[in-house]
Protein backbone atom coordinates (compact mmCIF):
# COMPACT_ATOMS: atom_id res chain seq x y z
CA UNK A 1 0.00 0.00 0.00
CA UNK A 2 0.98 3.61 -0.48
CA UNK A 3 2.31 5.54 2.49
CA UNK A 4 2.89 9.29 2.73
CA UNK A 5 5.66 10.56 4.94
CA UNK A 6 3.93 13.74 6.04
CA UNK A 7 7.13 15.16 7.51
CA UNK A 8 8.79 14.98 4.09
CA UNK A 9 5.80 15.87 1.90
CA UNK A 10 5.93 19.35 0.34
CA UNK A 11 2.20 19.16 -0.59
CA UNK A 12 2.81 20.15 -4.22
CA UNK A 13 0.25 17.78 -5.79
CA UNK A 14 2.57 16.39 -8.49
CA UNK A 15 1.59 12.88 -7.33
CA UNK A 16 -2.09 13.75 -7.79
CA UNK A 17 -1.38 14.83 -11.38
CA UNK A 18 0.19 11.50 -12.37
CA UNK A 19 -2.19 9.16 -10.52
CA UNK A 20 -3.93 7.06 -13.19
CA UNK A 21 -6.62 5.96 -10.73
CA UNK A 22 -7.48 9.45 -9.41
CA UNK A 23 -6.87 7.96 -5.97
CA UNK A 24 -4.94 10.93 -4.59
CA UNK A 25 -6.10 14.34 -3.49
CA UNK A 26 -4.23 17.37 -2.15
CA UNK A 27 -6.01 19.22 0.63
CA UNK A 28 -3.91 22.12 1.91
CA UNK A 29 -0.86 20.33 3.40
CA UNK A 30 -2.44 16.88 3.32
CA UNK A 31 -2.26 14.17 0.63
CA UNK A 32 -5.28 11.89 0.85
CA UNK A 33 -5.08 8.35 -0.55
CA UNK A 34 -8.37 6.59 -1.21
CA UNK A 35 -9.21 2.93 -1.81
CA UNK A 36 -8.92 3.32 -5.61
CA UNK A 37 -5.10 3.24 -5.32
CA UNK A 38 -3.80 0.40 -7.49
CA UNK A 39 -0.26 0.52 -6.12
CA UNK A 40 1.31 1.32 -9.49
CA UNK A 41 4.05 3.41 -7.89
CA UNK A 42 4.07 6.23 -10.45
CA UNK A 43 3.65 8.80 -7.70
CA UNK A 44 6.57 7.40 -5.70
CA UNK A 45 8.95 7.88 -8.63
CA UNK A 46 7.97 11.45 -9.43
CA UNK A 47 7.69 12.80 -5.86
CA UNK A 48 10.30 15.61 -5.76
CA UNK A 49 10.97 15.00 -2.07
CA UNK A 50 10.65 11.22 -1.93
CA UNK A 51 7.76 11.35 0.52
CA UNK A 52 5.75 8.54 -1.04
CA UNK A 53 6.52 4.85 -0.68
CA UNK A 54 4.88 1.59 -1.58
CA UNK A 55 5.17 -0.81 1.34
CA UNK A 56 3.88 -4.30 1.94
CA UNK A 57 0.61 -4.43 3.84
CA UNK A 58 2.14 -6.13 6.90
CA UNK A 59 4.95 -3.55 7.21
CA UNK A 60 2.52 -0.68 6.88
CA UNK A 61 0.59 -1.82 9.92
CA UNK A 62 3.58 -1.97 12.21
Amino acid sequence: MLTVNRYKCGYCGACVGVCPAAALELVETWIEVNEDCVGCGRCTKICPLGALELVKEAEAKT
Partner: protein
Amino acid sequence: MKCDLVVVGAGPAGSMTAKAAAEAGLDVVMLEKRQEIGDPVRCAEGVSKAALKKLVEPDPVWISAEVKGARIRAPDGTEMVMSEDRAGAEVGYVLERKVFDRALAQKAAEAGAKVMVKTRALGLLHEKGVPSGISAAFVGESLKIEAPLIIGADGVESKVGRWAGIDTALKPKDIETCAQFLLQDDEIDDEYCEFYLGNDIAPGGYVWSFPKGHSLANVGIGVLGSKADSGMPIRLLREFVKKNFPEGKVLEMMVGGVPVSGPIETTVADGVILVGDAARQSDPITGGGIINAMRAGVMAGEIAADLVPKGELDKKSLQVYEKRWRETIGKSISRNFAVKEFFVDLTDDDLNRLTHSLDGVDVAELDLKGLLKVLLRQNPKLLLKLRHLIV
Protein backbone atom coordinates in the same frame (compact mmCIF):
# COMPACT_ATOMS: atom_id res chain seq x y z
CA MET B 1 -26.31 28.78 -4.02
CA LYS B 2 -26.91 29.52 -7.69
CA CYS B 3 -24.82 31.36 -10.26
CA ASP B 4 -24.00 31.48 -13.98
CA LEU B 5 -20.47 30.11 -13.73
CA VAL B 6 -18.35 28.29 -11.15
CA VAL B 7 -14.59 28.59 -11.51
CA VAL B 8 -12.60 26.02 -9.55
CA GLY B 9 -9.18 27.35 -8.58
CA ALA B 10 -7.94 30.91 -8.05
CA GLY B 11 -4.57 30.84 -9.75
CA PRO B 12 -3.86 33.04 -12.80
CA ALA B 13 -6.10 30.90 -15.06
CA GLY B 14 -9.07 30.94 -12.69
CA SER B 15 -8.84 34.62 -11.78
CA MET B 16 -8.55 35.74 -15.41
CA THR B 17 -11.52 33.52 -16.32
CA ALA B 18 -13.60 34.89 -13.44
CA LYS B 19 -12.60 38.47 -14.23
CA ALA B 20 -13.41 38.23 -17.95
CA ALA B 21 -16.75 36.51 -17.32
CA ALA B 22 -17.79 38.89 -14.53
CA GLU B 23 -16.83 41.95 -16.59
CA ALA B 24 -19.08 40.65 -19.36
CA GLY B 25 -21.99 40.44 -16.94
CA LEU B 26 -22.02 36.87 -15.65
CA ASP B 27 -22.73 36.00 -12.03
CA VAL B 28 -19.48 34.20 -11.17
CA VAL B 29 -18.35 32.20 -8.13
CA MET B 30 -14.62 31.32 -7.88
CA LEU B 31 -13.55 28.62 -5.41
CA GLU B 32 -10.07 28.23 -3.93
CA LYS B 33 -9.38 25.20 -1.77
CA ARG B 34 -6.47 26.83 0.01
CA GLN B 35 -7.06 29.37 2.71
CA GLU B 36 -4.51 31.69 1.15
CA ILE B 37 -4.52 32.46 -2.56
CA GLY B 38 -1.03 32.21 -4.08
CA ASP B 39 0.65 30.32 -1.25
CA PRO B 40 2.52 27.98 -1.17
CA VAL B 41 4.25 28.91 -4.43
CA ARG B 42 5.01 26.16 -6.98
CA CYS B 43 6.67 28.26 -9.65
CA ALA B 44 9.96 29.79 -10.83
CA GLU B 45 7.97 33.04 -11.33
CA GLY B 46 9.47 34.17 -14.65
CA VAL B 47 7.26 35.81 -17.29
CA SER B 48 7.74 37.68 -20.53
CA LYS B 49 7.34 41.38 -19.93
CA ALA B 50 5.65 42.05 -23.27
CA ALA B 51 3.23 39.13 -22.99
CA LEU B 52 2.22 40.05 -19.45
CA LYS B 53 1.63 43.69 -20.35
CA LYS B 54 -0.98 42.62 -22.89
CA LEU B 55 -2.96 40.96 -20.11
CA VAL B 56 -2.56 43.16 -17.06
CA GLU B 57 -1.02 46.50 -16.08
CA PRO B 58 2.28 45.66 -14.31
CA ASP B 59 2.30 46.65 -10.65
CA PRO B 60 5.62 47.03 -8.77
CA VAL B 61 4.12 45.36 -5.70
CA TRP B 62 4.15 41.98 -7.42
CA ILE B 63 7.34 42.34 -9.47
CA SER B 64 10.44 41.09 -7.66
CA ALA B 65 12.92 41.84 -10.42
CA GLU B 66 13.35 42.75 -14.06
CA VAL B 67 15.92 40.81 -16.02
CA LYS B 68 18.00 41.81 -19.05
CA GLY B 69 18.31 38.41 -20.58
CA ALA B 70 19.16 34.78 -20.20
CA ARG B 71 22.32 32.77 -20.08
CA ILE B 72 22.28 29.14 -21.13
CA ARG B 73 25.12 26.95 -19.93
CA ALA B 74 26.00 23.71 -21.73
CA PRO B 75 27.18 20.65 -19.75
CA ASP B 76 30.85 21.52 -20.46
CA GLY B 77 30.37 25.06 -19.17
CA THR B 78 30.13 26.85 -22.55
CA GLU B 79 27.82 29.82 -22.22
CA MET B 80 25.36 31.41 -24.60
CA VAL B 81 23.78 34.76 -23.82
CA MET B 82 20.38 35.91 -25.04
CA SER B 83 19.13 39.40 -24.46
CA GLU B 84 15.84 40.69 -23.16
CA ASP B 85 12.77 40.34 -25.41
CA ARG B 86 14.58 37.75 -27.47
CA ALA B 87 15.07 34.86 -25.09
CA GLY B 88 11.60 33.44 -25.53
CA ALA B 89 8.60 33.85 -23.33
CA GLU B 90 10.19 33.41 -19.93
CA VAL B 91 12.52 36.36 -19.61
CA GLY B 92 11.45 39.77 -18.47
CA TYR B 93 9.86 39.90 -15.03
CA VAL B 94 10.38 37.65 -12.08
CA LEU B 95 7.15 37.87 -10.11
CA GLU B 96 6.18 37.52 -6.49
CA ARG B 97 3.42 34.97 -7.01
CA LYS B 98 2.12 35.22 -3.46
CA VAL B 99 1.19 38.82 -4.18
CA PHE B 100 0.49 38.46 -7.90
CA ASP B 101 -2.07 35.66 -7.59
CA ARG B 102 -4.01 37.52 -4.93
CA ALA B 103 -3.89 40.73 -6.96
CA LEU B 104 -5.47 38.90 -9.92
CA ALA B 105 -8.13 37.39 -7.63
CA GLN B 106 -8.75 40.90 -6.35
CA LYS B 107 -9.33 42.08 -9.92
CA ALA B 108 -11.85 39.27 -10.40
CA ALA B 109 -13.57 40.32 -7.18
CA GLU B 110 -13.62 43.97 -8.26
CA ALA B 111 -15.21 42.89 -11.54
CA GLY B 112 -18.01 41.35 -9.49
CA ALA B 113 -16.99 37.71 -9.02
CA LYS B 114 -17.66 36.11 -5.66
CA VAL B 115 -14.46 34.58 -4.28
CA MET B 116 -14.59 31.77 -1.72
CA VAL B 117 -11.36 30.56 -0.09
CA LYS B 118 -10.87 27.36 1.93
CA THR B 119 -13.61 25.96 -0.29
CA ARG B 120 -12.82 22.64 -1.89
CA ALA B 121 -14.68 21.24 -4.88
CA LEU B 122 -15.70 17.64 -4.16
CA GLY B 123 -17.47 16.66 -7.36
CA LEU B 124 -19.89 17.63 -10.08
CA LEU B 125 -23.63 17.94 -9.52
CA HIS B 126 -25.76 16.49 -12.29
CA GLU B 127 -29.22 17.18 -13.61
CA LYS B 128 -30.65 14.97 -16.36
CA GLY B 129 -27.17 13.51 -16.81
CA VAL B 130 -25.56 16.90 -17.48
CA PRO B 131 -23.22 18.73 -15.06
CA SER B 132 -25.28 21.30 -13.16
CA GLY B 133 -22.82 22.63 -10.61
CA ILE B 134 -20.29 21.72 -7.97
CA SER B 135 -20.62 20.08 -4.61
CA ALA B 136 -18.08 21.66 -2.32
CA ALA B 137 -16.83 21.88 1.24
CA PHE B 138 -16.79 25.47 2.50
CA VAL B 139 -14.51 25.54 5.57
CA GLY B 140 -15.46 21.91 6.07
CA GLU B 141 -19.21 22.45 5.67
CA SER B 142 -21.10 20.96 2.75
CA LEU B 143 -22.20 23.41 0.08
CA LYS B 144 -23.91 22.98 -3.27
CA ILE B 145 -23.34 25.56 -5.99
CA GLU B 146 -25.64 25.26 -8.99
CA ALA B 147 -24.36 26.60 -12.29
CA PRO B 148 -24.81 25.61 -15.93
CA LEU B 149 -21.05 25.89 -16.62
CA ILE B 150 -18.05 24.79 -14.58
CA ILE B 151 -14.53 25.93 -15.43
CA GLY B 152 -11.72 23.80 -14.04
CA ALA B 153 -8.68 25.96 -13.28
CA ASP B 154 -7.52 23.53 -10.63
CA GLY B 155 -3.92 23.17 -11.65
CA VAL B 156 -1.56 20.24 -12.03
CA GLU B 157 -3.66 18.15 -9.61
CA SER B 158 -6.87 18.93 -11.51
CA LYS B 159 -9.94 16.85 -10.71
CA VAL B 160 -12.64 18.74 -12.60
CA GLY B 161 -11.63 17.22 -15.95
CA ARG B 162 -11.55 13.70 -14.54
CA TRP B 163 -15.01 14.13 -13.01
CA ALA B 164 -16.25 15.13 -16.46
CA GLY B 165 -14.67 12.10 -18.12
CA ILE B 166 -11.54 13.81 -19.49
CA ASP B 167 -8.43 11.78 -18.69
CA THR B 168 -5.91 14.38 -17.59
CA ALA B 169 -3.59 11.95 -15.78
CA LEU B 170 0.00 12.78 -16.74
CA LYS B 171 2.36 10.03 -17.84
CA PRO B 172 5.79 10.21 -16.18
CA LYS B 173 7.31 11.45 -19.47
CA ASP B 174 4.75 14.27 -19.51
CA ILE B 175 5.60 15.91 -16.19
CA GLU B 176 8.66 17.72 -14.90
CA THR B 177 9.12 17.07 -11.21
CA CYS B 178 10.62 20.17 -9.62
CA ALA B 179 12.24 21.52 -6.50
CA GLN B 180 13.36 25.07 -5.83
CA PHE B 181 15.14 27.15 -3.21
CA LEU B 182 14.82 30.85 -2.66
CA LEU B 183 18.52 31.39 -2.27
CA GLN B 184 20.50 34.30 -0.84
CA ASP B 185 24.03 34.55 -2.17
CA ASP B 186 26.24 37.52 -3.07
CA GLU B 187 27.31 35.58 -6.18
CA ILE B 188 23.84 35.82 -7.70
CA ASP B 189 23.61 37.88 -10.87
CA ASP B 190 20.61 40.17 -10.38
CA GLU B 191 20.25 40.88 -14.10
CA TYR B 192 20.20 37.52 -15.87
CA CYS B 193 18.13 34.36 -15.76
CA GLU B 194 20.36 31.33 -16.01
CA PHE B 195 19.68 27.88 -17.41
CA TYR B 196 22.03 24.93 -16.82
CA LEU B 197 21.77 21.91 -19.09
CA GLY B 198 23.13 18.40 -18.64
CA ASN B 199 22.03 14.84 -18.05
CA ASP B 200 23.89 14.68 -14.74
CA ILE B 201 22.63 18.10 -13.63
CA ALA B 202 18.96 17.62 -14.51
CA PRO B 203 17.92 14.52 -16.52
CA GLY B 204 15.38 15.55 -19.16
CA GLY B 205 15.09 19.03 -17.69
CA TYR B 206 17.28 21.88 -16.53
CA VAL B 207 18.40 23.87 -13.54
CA TRP B 208 17.37 27.51 -13.44
CA SER B 209 18.35 30.58 -11.48
CA PHE B 210 15.84 33.43 -11.72
CA PRO B 211 16.89 36.57 -9.84
CA LYS B 212 14.48 38.07 -7.33
CA GLY B 213 16.58 41.16 -6.56
CA HIS B 214 18.93 41.96 -3.64
CA SER B 215 21.11 38.87 -4.26
CA LEU B 216 18.14 36.54 -4.03
CA ALA B 217 17.15 34.03 -6.68
CA ASN B 218 14.77 31.18 -7.30
CA VAL B 219 17.26 28.38 -7.92
CA GLY B 220 15.39 25.30 -9.01
CA ILE B 221 15.43 22.09 -10.96
CA GLY B 222 13.05 20.20 -13.22
CA VAL B 223 13.60 16.50 -13.89
CA LEU B 224 11.54 14.62 -16.45
CA GLY B 225 9.27 12.19 -14.59
CA SER B 226 10.32 9.22 -16.73
CA LYS B 227 13.97 9.85 -15.86
CA ALA B 228 13.35 10.52 -12.17
CA ASP B 229 13.35 8.34 -9.12
CA SER B 230 11.98 9.08 -5.69
CA GLY B 231 13.31 12.36 -4.30
CA MET B 232 15.70 12.98 -7.21
CA PRO B 233 14.85 16.68 -7.72
CA ILE B 234 15.66 17.76 -4.19
CA ARG B 235 18.79 15.57 -4.13
CA LEU B 236 20.16 16.99 -7.40
CA LEU B 237 19.24 20.53 -6.42
CA ARG B 238 21.19 20.23 -3.18
CA GLU B 239 24.20 18.90 -5.14
CA PHE B 240 23.94 21.75 -7.64
CA VAL B 241 23.72 24.43 -4.97
CA LYS B 242 26.60 22.93 -2.98
CA LYS B 243 28.78 23.08 -6.08
CA ASN B 244 27.67 26.40 -7.60
CA PHE B 245 26.53 28.45 -4.61
CA PRO B 246 28.47 26.97 -1.69
CA GLU B 247 27.78 30.01 0.46
CA GLY B 248 24.11 30.18 -0.54
CA LYS B 249 21.49 30.34 2.20
CA VAL B 250 18.10 28.76 1.67
CA LEU B 251 15.28 31.08 2.73
CA GLU B 252 12.43 29.06 1.31
CA MET B 253 11.85 25.64 -0.24
CA MET B 254 9.30 24.94 -2.98
CA VAL B 255 8.26 21.82 -4.89
CA GLY B 256 5.88 21.13 -7.73
CA GLY B 257 4.99 19.29 -10.89
CA VAL B 258 4.83 20.98 -14.30
CA PRO B 259 2.80 19.43 -17.14
CA VAL B 260 4.88 19.03 -20.32
CA SER B 261 2.43 16.79 -22.16
CA GLY B 262 1.65 19.18 -24.97
CA PRO B 263 -2.01 19.72 -25.90
CA ILE B 264 -4.28 16.99 -24.54
CA GLU B 265 -7.00 15.45 -26.68
CA THR B 266 -9.89 17.47 -25.32
CA THR B 267 -10.30 20.29 -22.82
CA VAL B 268 -14.11 20.53 -22.85
CA ALA B 269 -17.00 18.27 -21.93
CA ASP B 270 -20.72 18.94 -21.53
CA GLY B 271 -20.91 21.95 -19.19
CA VAL B 272 -17.18 21.86 -18.43
CA ILE B 273 -14.11 23.78 -19.67
CA LEU B 274 -10.50 23.33 -18.49
CA VAL B 275 -7.95 26.16 -18.42
CA GLY B 276 -4.27 26.58 -17.51
CA ASP B 277 -2.27 23.73 -15.97
CA ALA B 278 -5.55 21.79 -15.55
CA ALA B 279 -5.77 21.82 -19.37
CA ARG B 280 -2.01 21.03 -19.56
CA GLN B 281 -1.38 24.34 -21.33
CA SER B 282 2.07 24.99 -19.83
CA ASP B 283 4.96 25.24 -22.28
CA PRO B 284 6.72 21.87 -22.72
CA ILE B 285 10.15 23.44 -23.33
CA THR B 286 10.36 26.17 -20.75
CA GLY B 287 7.75 24.86 -18.31
CA GLY B 288 6.30 28.39 -18.19
CA GLY B 289 2.57 28.38 -17.62
CA ILE B 290 1.44 31.78 -16.37
CA ILE B 291 0.90 33.58 -19.68
CA ASN B 292 -0.80 30.64 -21.40
CA ALA B 293 -3.02 30.14 -18.36
CA MET B 294 -4.02 33.82 -18.31
CA ARG B 295 -4.71 33.89 -22.04
CA ALA B 296 -6.77 30.70 -21.91
CA GLY B 297 -8.63 32.15 -18.93
CA VAL B 298 -9.59 35.28 -20.86
CA MET B 299 -10.76 33.15 -23.79
CA ALA B 300 -12.81 30.85 -21.55
CA GLY B 301 -14.33 33.76 -19.61
CA GLU B 302 -15.37 35.58 -22.77
CA ILE B 303 -16.79 32.44 -24.34
CA ALA B 304 -18.68 31.65 -21.13
CA ALA B 305 -20.20 35.13 -21.17
CA ASP B 306 -21.35 34.55 -24.72
CA LEU B 307 -22.71 31.01 -24.35
CA VAL B 308 -24.21 30.90 -20.84
CA PRO B 309 -27.06 33.33 -21.66
CA LYS B 310 -27.81 31.28 -24.79
CA GLY B 311 -27.76 28.03 -22.85
CA GLU B 312 -25.40 26.51 -25.42
CA LEU B 313 -23.10 24.59 -23.13
CA ASP B 314 -22.89 21.08 -24.50
CA LYS B 315 -19.54 19.71 -25.59
CA LYS B 316 -20.20 20.59 -29.22
CA SER B 317 -21.01 24.24 -28.48
CA LEU B 318 -17.89 24.54 -26.32
CA GLN B 319 -15.69 23.57 -29.29
CA VAL B 320 -15.37 27.30 -29.91
CA TYR B 321 -13.05 27.43 -26.85
CA GLU B 322 -11.18 24.36 -28.02
CA LYS B 323 -10.65 25.94 -31.41
CA ARG B 324 -9.66 29.36 -30.08
CA TRP B 325 -6.91 28.20 -27.74
CA ARG B 326 -5.52 25.59 -30.11
CA GLU B 327 -5.20 28.18 -32.89
CA THR B 328 -3.41 30.65 -30.62
CA ILE B 329 -1.37 29.39 -27.66
CA GLY B 330 -1.85 25.78 -28.79
CA LYS B 331 0.41 26.23 -31.81
CA SER B 332 3.56 26.98 -29.84
CA ILE B 333 2.62 24.41 -27.19
CA SER B 334 2.41 21.73 -29.92
CA ARG B 335 5.65 22.74 -31.56
CA ASN B 336 7.53 23.02 -28.28
CA PHE B 337 6.22 19.61 -27.22
CA ALA B 338 7.79 18.03 -30.31
CA VAL B 339 11.03 19.93 -29.73
CA LYS B 340 11.06 18.81 -26.09
CA GLU B 341 10.47 15.17 -27.03
CA PHE B 342 13.61 15.41 -29.17
CA PHE B 343 15.78 17.40 -26.75
CA VAL B 344 15.17 15.27 -23.65
CA ASP B 345 17.05 12.37 -25.26
CA LEU B 346 20.14 14.31 -26.35
CA THR B 347 23.44 13.32 -24.78
CA ASP B 348 25.69 15.83 -23.06
CA ASP B 349 27.96 15.65 -26.13
CA ASP B 350 25.02 16.63 -28.33
CA LEU B 351 24.14 19.53 -26.03
CA ASN B 352 27.77 20.71 -26.00
CA ARG B 353 28.02 20.42 -29.76
CA LEU B 354 24.84 22.44 -30.24
CA THR B 355 26.11 25.19 -27.97
CA HIS B 356 29.55 25.26 -29.65
CA SER B 357 27.84 25.53 -33.05
CA LEU B 358 26.66 28.98 -31.99
CA ASP B 359 30.22 30.29 -31.58
CA GLY B 360 30.50 33.48 -33.58
CA VAL B 361 26.75 33.74 -34.09
CA ASP B 362 25.20 36.82 -32.54
CA VAL B 363 22.80 35.00 -30.23
CA ALA B 364 21.69 38.26 -28.67
CA GLU B 365 19.73 38.86 -31.87
CA LEU B 366 17.66 35.71 -31.54
CA ASP B 367 14.46 34.60 -29.91
CA LEU B 368 13.70 30.99 -28.99
CA LYS B 369 12.27 30.18 -32.40
CA GLY B 370 15.11 32.00 -34.17
CA LEU B 371 17.60 30.18 -32.00
CA LEU B 372 16.16 26.83 -33.10
CA LYS B 373 16.40 27.96 -36.71
CA VAL B 374 20.10 28.79 -36.37
CA LEU B 375 20.74 25.55 -34.50
CA LEU B 376 19.07 23.69 -37.34
CA ARG B 377 21.17 25.47 -39.95
CA GLN B 378 24.41 24.77 -38.06
CA ASN B 379 23.51 21.16 -37.18
CA PRO B 380 21.36 19.82 -40.01
CA LYS B 381 22.22 16.18 -39.35
CA LEU B 382 21.76 16.14 -35.59
CA LEU B 383 18.52 18.05 -35.76
CA LEU B 384 17.09 16.40 -38.86
CA LYS B 385 14.01 15.28 -36.98
CA LEU B 386 13.13 18.88 -36.06
CA ARG B 387 13.28 20.17 -39.62
CA HIS B 388 9.55 20.03 -40.27
CA LEU B 389 8.78 21.91 -37.04
CA ILE B 390 10.79 25.01 -37.67
CA VAL B 391 10.08 26.74 -40.92
